[in-house]
């Protein structure tokens, strides 16, 4: 390979990689440095304070609380979306008239802006005049105060997330179902296998690798949950505070820049762990015999 070829290769990849390093690696290092100071959002005074910010984080139950809540949000949202999405994919699997139209309609929510759609959900979920509670009243079912009752706020955020992201799970489930060779089902029919056995021995195991990919993709996204919480209850709400909204609260409402940076560092360790799990999984998938 000539030196001009080498220069060209560099010219192709360098601009994008430089930007990515500048906007990702630099903030990471900067966050670490900032986390050992007492910098605030307003004013330029800042001194080295050692690990004091980290000590505060481990002493303040708000942080552990936000981590726990985010974890249960990820588990519940991804779990419900997976089961519902897979069930939908199984029902919609076979061809029927108007399938393309139904599919596209189902997929639209996941493409929309959570911040904007979440805002409109406030009208739907309103306890006094919301259409949801009016429908529940019509059906004779109890009508919770979705957005103001402490015990229901979390469920409301979960509900909107499930509405938005179940289609994603359905989409990947459909791809997984379509990749199963028809010959396996034919063989099962020859063997007179029951529907339950076919599902447990063929359908589910062969879907598993792609479902795993879907779960990881969705989990990394749910871990960032910010927009829907901001759109419904806002930050600093004891029943819906997530990692991201707590970061927002600390940095932009309380103005504690350095404390926020320390927390961001801890969150990033968590994110990097999940991201690593994801890339490992992807590599394993690629090595899998097709």
């Amino acid at each position: 390979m000539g030196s001009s070829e080498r220069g060209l290769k560099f010219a192709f990849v360098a601009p994008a990689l430089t930007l990515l390093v500048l906007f990702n690696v630099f903030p990471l290092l900067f966050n670490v440095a900032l986390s050992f100071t007492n910098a605030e959002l307003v004013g330029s005074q800042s001194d080295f304070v050692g690990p004091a910010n980290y000590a505060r984080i481990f002493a303040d139950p708000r942080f552990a609380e936000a981590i726990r809540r985010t974890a249960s949000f990820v588990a519940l949202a991804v779990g419900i979306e997976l089961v519902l999405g897979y069930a939908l994919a199984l029902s919609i699997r076979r061809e029927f008239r108007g399938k393309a139209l139904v599919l596209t309609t189902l997929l639209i929510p996941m493409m929309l802006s959570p911040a904007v759609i979440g805002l409109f959900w406030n009208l739907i979920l309103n306890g006094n005049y919301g259409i949801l509670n009016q429908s529940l009243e019509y059906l004779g079912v109890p009508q919770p105060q979705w957005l103001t009752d402490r015990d229901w706020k979390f469920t409301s955020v979960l509900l909107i997330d499930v509405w938005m992201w179940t289609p994603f799970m359905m989409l990947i489930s459909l791809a997984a179902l379509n990749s199963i060779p028809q010959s396996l089902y034919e063989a099962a029919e020859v063997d007179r296998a029951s529907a339950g056995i076919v599902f447990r021995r063929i359908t589910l195991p062969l879907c598993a690798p792609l479902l795993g990919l879907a779960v990881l993709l969705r989990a990394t996204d749910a871990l960032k949950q910010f927009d829907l919480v901001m759109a419904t209850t806002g930050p600093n709400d004891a029943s819906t505070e997530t990692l991201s909204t707590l970061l927002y609260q600390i940095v932009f409402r309380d103005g504690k820049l350095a404390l926020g940076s320390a927390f961001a560092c801890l969150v990033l360790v968590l994110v990097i762990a999940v991201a690593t799990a994801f890339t490992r999984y992807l590599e394993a998938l690629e090595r899998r015999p097709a």
Partner: protein
Amino acid sequence: MKFARWSLIFVYTLLASLPLLWMALTSFKSREDAISQHARFVPTAQASEDGLRNTFVPTLAPYVALGSVHSGAQHSFWSYLGSSVVIGALSTLASVLLGTSCAYGFSRFRIAGAKDWLFFVLSTRFMPPLAVVVPVLMMYRQLSLTGTHAGLILLYTVFNLSLAVWLMKGFLDEIPRAFEEAALIDGYSRLAAFRTIILPQARTGMAVTAVFCLISAWNEYGFAMTLNSSGAITVPAYFAGLQGNIDGMPWPQVAAGCLLFVAPIVAFTVAVRRHLLRGMTFGTIKQ
């Protein structure tokens, strides 16, 4: 079993589309009709005297009101929509160009540590915006980029690079190498071969990538809000700013704005429906 299948499809389609239908209906109502305790969902020409009826007289007033400046905001909805268009379009253009070039490098050349680089690129997508926003904010203050279009365009360009590189690499890998090798033998330079052979073949891929970049820039909220504390500039940040007083929300205007804001996304979704799987999984699943 068959009944269960069809009822699941029917009920879920209803649930998936009702909120958006409700949004469309609300955007043609008066505020009083929008927050009535007896849902009004039947448009009629004649106002009913009886407040308990489920009818309403459709009006275009909410759309007209989008032109006026709402209390607490600095500009009208249209100005923020314009910003969203400019920021979305320019950042998409930059992401697709940079992403295609980078993906071509990884697709056709032997690059040391290529796999690690690609995974690094992908992992940038997993960063929560709120965890990196402080350093970005400090950097932007130094460069006077806070509250500017250029600042968000740059940020969204970088934010979407992971998507653009991975999607484009998938598309470029599918173009047979024989095409450009033949061109190279014919005396084309590498760059000329890229321009005349690869780019035309990659057009569909670039269009699909552009749609996904545009949608994610269009929908972004975390950076848009935190980097523009002095004046929200894209629509998601503008809408969030209206939220201070929920009971005083101008719901019909909000619905009208939401509808106009999501309509292009619905159109784009329909346009790329056959590539949705690929786009949503960074090209890791191709079908």
